[in-house]
Every structure is written in structure tokens, then in C-alpha cells.
């Protein structure tokens, strides 16, 4: 189509929000990655929903806080999460401005008004702050209702004996379809609201006077940086800095091992000091030598005593026994005269 497009509010909202979200995502994800490596973001089970909220920050930046505080939904832990959403504000303003300018030129054939990005971001963020919590509550309610109705239908006597695999598939398909339809309807309404907000800006814009080829050239130049080399250098430098930062803060061991499978907590082996080990070994040898010498001496003395004992025995026969200074004991080892 080369003529001016007449776009519905829904299509207009979608054609700006969708590319803006994906344009901003890589930059936001780089920060998210860094914060995760620093340990300032902990996501336990809500990764999918948190990813969606991060992807849609042009509309979810305030809604994230409203849902967290108002509805009490727990996205994750850590200071990094709110910081990430606040950091995404300038990124989204740039991405929205970029996406909107291309749509204004190529699809609407209108001159993009000044500060289009900021203007649209304020409108989108405020609309999201009101609409997304509403969508959250309605969607949650509709899903719960659908699940309970489907469950009660499948609990009926005639369906009670359905095999487990069939029942699970049927139940999920039924409530999932209802939930999906509600979500699609709510998304349609939401995007139409955004489209109306864009129309407000478009109504004041001047028609673009260029030829189609001229417009495409301008549209094309918006999509790529004017100075490719500068952009490539900046991109590489930013990537290098982020990579260095990432490796600097990346935990050496698993940041959160599961409770079920914690690594064996072996005590760390003491530092090996060869000098100490050698002196310890030498000391052990000396001790052993001394012990051996003592044992040999004792054995030699016992041998002497035995030999002497033999002579003494011979002496007893001959005269009085030779005392070694110890009291004489009975054969049973009891003190003499104990009476027992």
C-alpha cells in the first residue's frame, strides 16, 4: 500500500507499542542481567510474568508498582527490580519516539510532532497504570471462575470416570480457551485506548509533503543511526564495559543451589606448607626414635632385672630377700593384712 493508511485505533496502538517494546528490550535486559549477577534481583517462580512486565514497560512501569502494592502480587525480591523499572523510563521514551516517528511518516504520512516520545510515554504510562491493574484483576477473576465451572462440570457423575490424561487435557483446553478469549478482548480494548491517545497527537500533526520514495528514505534513515561508525563504536564499547562488569560480579559458584541438592559441605583442606610439613615429619621421626630408645632401654633393664631376679632367687634360698623399696604384696595383689 502506498497511499495514506486509515488505521483503526487498535492497529495504531499495536503498531507503535509492539516495536517500541522490542526495541527497548535488549537494553533493559542487559541491565537486568547485570542486576541478577550482582544479586540484587531474585526471581523464584514468576519469571514469565516478570519478563512480560519488563517487555511492556512503556505501559507497565507504574502498573508494576500498583500491582505489587495494590494487589499484593510478589514479582520477586531485591532492590534491582524497582531500579530496573525506573531505569527503563528514559529507554522507553527513546524507543517510543523512534517507533512512533516511523509510524507517523510511513503509515500515517504525517510529520512527527516535536517531543513525540515523551508525550506518548506520559500518556501510555498513565493509561497503563489505570488499565493494567484492572486487566490483572478481571483476568484473574475470569480465569478462576472458568476453572471452577469447568471443574464442577467434569466432576459430574457422567464425566467422573474419565481417565486422568483426557480429563487434564480437556480441563486445561476449556478454561484456557475462556481465559485466552478474555485476555484477547482486554488486550484489544487496551490497545484501542492507546491508539486513541496516539490519534490525539496525530490530529494536530501536519501532513508530510514528500513523495512516497522520499518518505521511505526519511523513514529508513530514522531506523538506522546517522553515523554508523560512531554507533558501532558506542555499541561495542558499551558491550565491552557491560561484559567486564558482568564477569566481575558473576558469582563463582551457584548463586542459589536448590535445598534438595546442596553441594557437600566438605571442610576446606588446610593450606599446605612444605617447611611445616618437613619439620613436623622430622619431629615425628625424633619422637619415634626417642620412644624406640626408651623401649629398648626398658627392655634392657627388664632383661637385667630378670637376670638379677634369677640371682636373687638363688640368694633367697641362700639368705633374706632383696627389697626394691616397694611394700610387699600378696599373690592376689592385695595389700598385705587387708583381711579380705
Amino acid at each position, binding site marked *: 500500500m502506498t497511499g495514506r493508511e486509515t488505521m483503526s485505533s487498535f492497529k495504531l496502538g499495536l503498531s507503535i507499542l509492539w516495536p517500541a517494546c522490542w526495541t527497548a528490550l535488549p537494553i533493559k535486559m542487559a541491565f537486568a542481567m547485570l542486576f541478577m549477577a550482582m544479586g540484587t534481583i531474585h526471581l523464584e517462580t514468576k519469571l514469565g510474568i516478570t519478563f512480560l512486565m519488563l517487555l511492556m514497560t512503556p505501559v507497565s512501569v507504574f502498573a508494576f508498582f500498583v500491582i505489587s502494592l495494590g494487589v499484593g502480587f510478589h514479582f520477586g525480591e531485591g532492590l534491582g527490580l524497582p531500579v530496573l523499572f525506573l531505569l527503563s523510563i528514559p529507554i522507553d521514551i527513546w524507543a517510543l519516539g523512534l517507533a512512533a516517528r516511523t509510524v507517523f511518516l510511513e503509515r500515517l504520512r504525517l510529520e512527527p510532532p516535536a517531543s513525540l516520545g515523551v508525550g506518548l510515554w506520559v500518556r501510555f504510562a498513565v493509561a497503563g497504570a489505570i488499565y493494567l491493574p484492572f486487566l490483572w484483576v478481571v483476568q484473574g477473576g475470569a480465569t478462576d471462575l472458568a476453572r471452577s465451572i469447568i471443574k464442577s462440570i467434569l466432576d459430574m457423575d457422567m464425566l467422573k470416570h474419565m481417565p486422568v490424561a483426557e480429563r487434564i487435557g480437556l480441563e486445561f483446553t476449556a478454561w484456557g480457551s475462556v481465559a485466552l478469549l478474555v485476555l484477547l478482548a482486554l488486550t484489544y480494548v487496551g490497545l484501542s485506548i492507546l491508539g486513541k491517545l496516539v490519534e490525539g497527537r496525530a490530529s494536530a500533526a501536519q501532513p508530510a509533503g514528500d513523495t512516497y520514495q522520499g518518505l521511505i528514505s526519511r523513514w529508513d534513515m530514522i531506523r538506522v543511526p546517522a553515523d554508523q561508525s560512531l554507533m558501532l563504536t558506542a555499541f561495542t564499547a558499551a558491550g565491552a564495559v557491560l561484559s567486564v562488569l558482568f564477569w566481575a560480579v558473576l558469582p*563463582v559458584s551457584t548463586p542459589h543451589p536448590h535445598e534438595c541438592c546442596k553441594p557437600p559441605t566438605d571442610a576446606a583442606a588446610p593450606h599446605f606448607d612444605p617447611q611445616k610439613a618437613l619439620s613436623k615429619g622430622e619431629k615425628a621421626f625424633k619422637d619415634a626414635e626417642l620412644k624406640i630408645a626408651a623401649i629398648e632401654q626398658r627392655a634392657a633393664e627388664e632383661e637385667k632385672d630378670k637376670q638379677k631376679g634369677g640371682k636373687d632367687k638363688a640368694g633367697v634360698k641362700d639368705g633374706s630377700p632383696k627389697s626394691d623399696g616397694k611394700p610387699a604384696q600378696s599373690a592376689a595383689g592385695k595389700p598385705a593384712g587387708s583381711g579380705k
Partner: protein
Amino acid sequence: MDTTTQPTTTQPSAIEKVLAFVDERVGLKTLQAKMLNEPVPGGSRWAYVFGSVLLFIFIMQAITGILLMFYYVPTADHAYASTQYIIHSVDYGWFLLSYHFWGSTAMVVCVFAHMSQVFLWGAYKKPRELIWLVGLALFGIVMGFGFTGYLLPWDQRAYWATTVGVEIMDKTPLLGDFMARFLKGGATPGQMTLSRFFVIHVMVLPAALMGLAGLHLFLFRKAGPAGPFRGSVEEIKAKTDYFFPRQIWKDIVGMVVVFLSICSLAFWEPIVLLEEATPDPGDYHPEPEWYFLFLFQLLRLKVFAGEFGQFLGAIALPGAFMALLAALPFIDRSPERNIFKRPIALIGWIVVMASILIFTVAAIINREFLE
């Protein structure tokens, strides 16, 4: 004062000299022109990034895989311990292994996305039939990577997923018994199984993938990009652009997003092993990797009970589906590429995707009933 200007002759720098030397012998500039100056009908698009992203994921898988091989021991009595060592003792080992694991998941997701894009864009039609067929073979190789790599940690999950997979393969007529015996190398998975899976995972499949990916790219460059499926001739002509720089930029952004997503997943859910593999499942309920879960849940349906039912669900239906995909360019000969004017194709794609989603989620819900 002498104001005459001397003609300045700029001497080539050292880098320029080296480049000129290589160019003279290799034809670098011609190669660069061929690689980067290819026209993209209708201009660059985000929908075209999946092929480049897949190549990037494969390169990253190769790098992380090589690094893991420095520590991994492919023997039945050391595979588990060496994997635990990688996770708990090697510096950043947990991250490397988790990245490799989630990278394989990303590869499967991107293959599905790439095939869907080609199907919806009608880019398999004449003269791109061979690109589609080679792409299907590459899809099979990616699935093979997932299947063979899953056994290597040698924990209960690995052991039983392989047992289930080989049992499914065993049901294939004629070749099934041979393939199952060849892969297992014995009555139960053991050292021979691990050795064979390891060799297939690190030698056979990478070589096959590199060869076929090269052929895929060659055929793609020969036929040229299909371009958008709608839009006036004037619009497509006005927006037509070279591959460099716009499509290259989009590809780079796509790679960055995928890289960061895999890193985030590695942080969010670092890989954790179960107990070491034993022929006794104990409390563990065997199940395959998530991308085969839909098939696993399908086989739980009563209609697929019994020997014939299992053959029907495990072999006949997936086989017929793959045969249909292979024959698609030769059946669908209409030149119409607009998916909104091909209702059967659109409905078929929605039904297949919805079925995969429903059965996968049902398999996850089904876990509650097993415990």
C-alpha cells in the same frame, strides 16, 4: 610565503597492507560484497532474524560444550561425579553448564520459530523446496542434540528420559529394534550407551549440522530471500535494501536478546542434578525433556493404549506429520504466499501449535497426579 600545496600521497597503513595481501590471495572484498550486499526484498525485518540467531546459538553451544568437555568424563562411573564437579567446584562451571542447558532449549524454541516463519511466509515454495528439506533435516539434528545431550549428566532424569526415548524408538517398524540396540549397546543403558551418546553428541551431530547448515545457507543465497508475502510491487521495491547494515543490526539485536535471555534463565534456574542414575527409578517418575513432553502426554491417552496404540502415537503420527512437512512444497504448488489467503495452512499451523502447547501443559499438570 610559499602557498603552493604539495600533492599528498597517503601511505596505506599496516592493517590495510595486510588486508590487501589477504585480498589478493583470497578475494576478501569479493567475498565481503557477496556476503553483505545481498538485496533483501521489502527491506530488513525482525521476522528474518531467526536463522542468524540459530547460527549464533549453535556457536555458543559449541564454545560452552568444548569448555565443559575439559572437565566432563564420559564413563558410567565418573560422568555423574564429573558433572557435579563442574557444577560445584569448577569456577563459573555452574554458569557454563546452565548456559549450555538453556541454550539447547533456546535452540529448539528458535528452530520452531524459524520453521513457523518460513511456513507462514510461504517461503518453502518454488524455488526454495530444497532449502525447506535441508531445514527439516537440521530440525531433526537439533532434536538429536537434545536427546543425546540429555543422557550425559548421568542422573536419574537423564537415565530415564533416555530409557523412555529409546523405548519409543524401539516401536519403529523394521529399523526400530536395530536402532534401539545400537544406541543402548546392551539390555539396559550403561557404559556403551553413554559412550555412543557422547560420540554422537560431540562428533557426529556437530559435523552433520555444520555440513547441512552450510548447504542450507548456500541454497538460501542461491535462491535469494523470499521477501514479504504482501505489499505492492512499488512498496517492496522502495523498501528493498541490502543485507548490510539494517538486517545485520537486527540480527545482532536478536542475538543479544537471545544471549541475555539464556543468561537470565541460567541465573533463574541453574541446573541441578538428581540422584545418580540407577536401573531402579525409585520415587522418580520418568519423563522426557520438555520439548518431547507433548508426545509423552499424547501416549497417555486411552486411544493410544496397547502395543498398536503406542506405535500409532509414538511413531506413525509423528512420522506421518514429518512426511507431510517434507512433501509440503510439492503438494502446495500454488504461488500464493499470503498466509491470510491460505486458510488451510493458517488453521493447520494454529491447530498444531495449540496441540503442542495443550499437551505440554497437560503433561506438566499430570505430574501432580503421579505424586
